């Protein structure tokens, strides 16, 4: 037993007393500070309210008999009741501020508090998108400076700041590719997507009206270059590649892929969701990429996953820059900043394919991302990617003796480590292991993705975890993995200690209950 050396001691199996076997119960059903919270509709009462409103005046109905007959069924709560309700629910939640969040491909890194302070500065927080441009010069300068950083880090000459998140950025990039091809009178039909790409890539291409074709992965978990080359032709508009890919591997043939696609008249979209692994080390522009989105909410530490909106600026090559969407922030000769919008685009941006959003993008996230960049500096950002890769490799090498790591021999991984369910006994699955991790106090890793690996578990620790925190995680992961390999039956009914036991995911998907009605037996549905 070497558990102490690996971090937090977890309970011996003999001590795994299940709550249902525990004779001690409470009058309320609550467990100490963990309160079993009812639905808000079940707490409320129509005669309660958080505010005192005057009696509504009696007016003659002009609704022609369409008046509501029954009272409107919204919950009535006092302010205190409402605050408690949501605070109690939030205590049952798992968040990056609670613990390590190993969700692969999501880059759940720490959100620095300095970012929050800057985003709350009045000059950034209390402005309106329709304010006169002269009155928001500071905000425009911030957007412009962030754009310059993104261009510098990616080695690409243009950037569209407005897309609201990763998949929105993908759509922006593919629409630019479509516009560029149509502008040269060469509209094409097919987008190639390797198996190791993010699941949103084929969805984006299909949404943009392209036919999607898969390119197989080779045995190392990377794009099969020869298969890709063989498929290229005059009908192929472009390729969407995730690099580093979803197997957690860098695509070393990226330049050769880009060259081959360009030679066949196509364009290259790179999914930059995994930029965290290479920022400061690799410039996608040098690899022949024509468009790439950057998840500010991953690589540049702005909150996400319920904590804040995403933001997905897209960088463009010379070939696509003229087609980038509006608006664009430009610095004028006298050091001021202006917005290029529809009214002013004719001068030198007449090829823009249009607009992705009504206004200028996620200002709050721009402020946080630039704060993160400036507080790290160029050298610090390079270390971000180095530490992210080091942490993931530490997990890969610490666990490859217990878990099957299908691409462990393909060399070092990037920012995420991939494992399979090979060797689990007694029909135990990746899902069971994930539920076991909840009992250990962790949000589970990404599971069943990528699809190229059976029962995949994709772990991304990010650079913001300490060695001690990662050792604790490894200790817990190893313990649950060993139970899965030993065929431990108790894993099949995990989680045992979460506020809710195993939910019926099948029924929840097949027959979801989306509307509250007084008659529903919610206690039963929730279990």
């Amino acid at each position: 037993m070497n558990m102490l050396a690996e971090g937090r001691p977890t309970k011996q199996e003999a001590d795994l007393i299940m709550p249902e076997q525990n004779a001690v119960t409470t009058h309320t059903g609550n467990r100490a500070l963990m309160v079993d919270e009812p639905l808000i509709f079940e707490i409320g009462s129509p005669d309660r309210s958080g505010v005192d409103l005057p009696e509504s005046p009696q007016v003659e109905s002009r609704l022609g008999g369409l008046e509501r007959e029954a009272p409107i069924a919204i919950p009535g709560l006092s302010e205190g009741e409402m605050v408690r309700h949501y605070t109690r629910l939030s205590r049952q939640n798992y968040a990056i501020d609670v613990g390590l969040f190993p969700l692969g491909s999501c880059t759940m890194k720490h959100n620095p508090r300095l970012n929050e302070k800057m985003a709350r500065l009045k000059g950034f927080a209390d402005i309106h998108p329709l304010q006169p441009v002269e009155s928001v010069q500071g905000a425009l300068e911030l957007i412009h400076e962030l754009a310059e950083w993104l261009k510098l880090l990616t080695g690409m000459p243009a950037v569209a700041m407005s897309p609201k998140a990763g998949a929105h950025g993908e759509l922006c990039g593919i629409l630019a590719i479509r516009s560029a091809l149509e502008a040269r009178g060469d509209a094409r039909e097919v987008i190639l997507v390797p198996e190791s790409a993010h699941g949103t890539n084929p969805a984006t291409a299909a949404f943009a009206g392209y036919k999607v074709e898969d390119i197989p992965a080779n045995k190392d978990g990377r794009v099969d270059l020869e298969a890709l080359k063989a498929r290229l032709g005059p009908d192929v508009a472009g390729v969407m590649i995730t690099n580093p890919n979803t197997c957690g591997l860098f695509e070393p043939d990226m330049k050769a892929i880009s060259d081959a696609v360009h030679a066949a008249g196509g364009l290259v979209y790179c999914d930059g969701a995994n930029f965290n692994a290479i920022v400061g080390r690799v410039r996608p522009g040098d690899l022949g990429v024509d468009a790439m989105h950057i998840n500010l909410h991953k690589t540049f530490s702005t909150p996400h996953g319920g904590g804040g909106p995403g933001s997905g600026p897209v960088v463009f090559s010379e070939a696509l820059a003229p087609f980038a969407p509006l608006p664009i922030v430009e610095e004028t000769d006298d050091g001021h900043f202006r917005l290029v919008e529809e009214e002013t685009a004719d001068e030198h941006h007449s090829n823009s394919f249009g607009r992705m959003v009504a206004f200028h993008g996620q200002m709050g996230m721009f402020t946080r991302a630039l704060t993160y960049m400036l507080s790290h500096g160029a050298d610090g950002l390079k270390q971000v990617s180095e530490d992210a890769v080091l942490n993931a490799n530490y997990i890969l090498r610490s666990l490859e003796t217990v878990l099957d790591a299908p691409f462990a021999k393909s060399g070092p991984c990037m920012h995420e480590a991939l494992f399979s369910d090979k060797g689990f006994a007694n029909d135990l699955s990746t899902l069971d292991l994930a539920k076991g991790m909840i009992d250990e106090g962790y949000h589970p890793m990404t599971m069943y993705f990528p699809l190229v690996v059976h029962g995949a578990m994709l772990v991304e620790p990010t650079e913001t975890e300490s060695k001690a925190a990662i050792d604790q995680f490894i200790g817990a992961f190893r313990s649950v993995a060993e139970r899965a390999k030993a065929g431990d039956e108790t894993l099949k009914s995990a989680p045992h200690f979460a506020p809710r036991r195993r939910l019926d995911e099948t029924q929840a998907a097949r027959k979801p209950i989306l509307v509250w009605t007084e008659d529903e037996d919610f206690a039963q549905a929730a279990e």
Partner: protein
Amino acid sequence: MSRYYTDEHEWVDVEGDTATVGITDYAQEQLGDIVFVEVPDVGTELGQGDDAAVVESVKAASDVYAAVSGEVIEVNEMLEDEPGLVNSSAEEDGWFFRLTLADKDELDDLMDEKAYKAFVDGL
């Protein structure tokens, strides 16, 4: 009636000029509980290997390909309300769609039951 299989885990029953397509029992077992099935519209012209339907389980969403080309003439409307039919009866009641065979030679590309079983055993 003869039954054919693809290496993408679809089965095809051929009766005269009509082919009935579904996913194999092995496929449903790998996917886990099916929660949603999207079948093609009647009248859709499918080429061999085209995306024809979508099957979504608690684990993943997967495309179902047209094992042979032809025009869709009937779809299994039961699947809309009861996607679980694919789990309980993948190779009978859980069929996806029927099409008129455009080119019988395409059947030569497919496997028979014995070959498919050997293929699955090798996975």
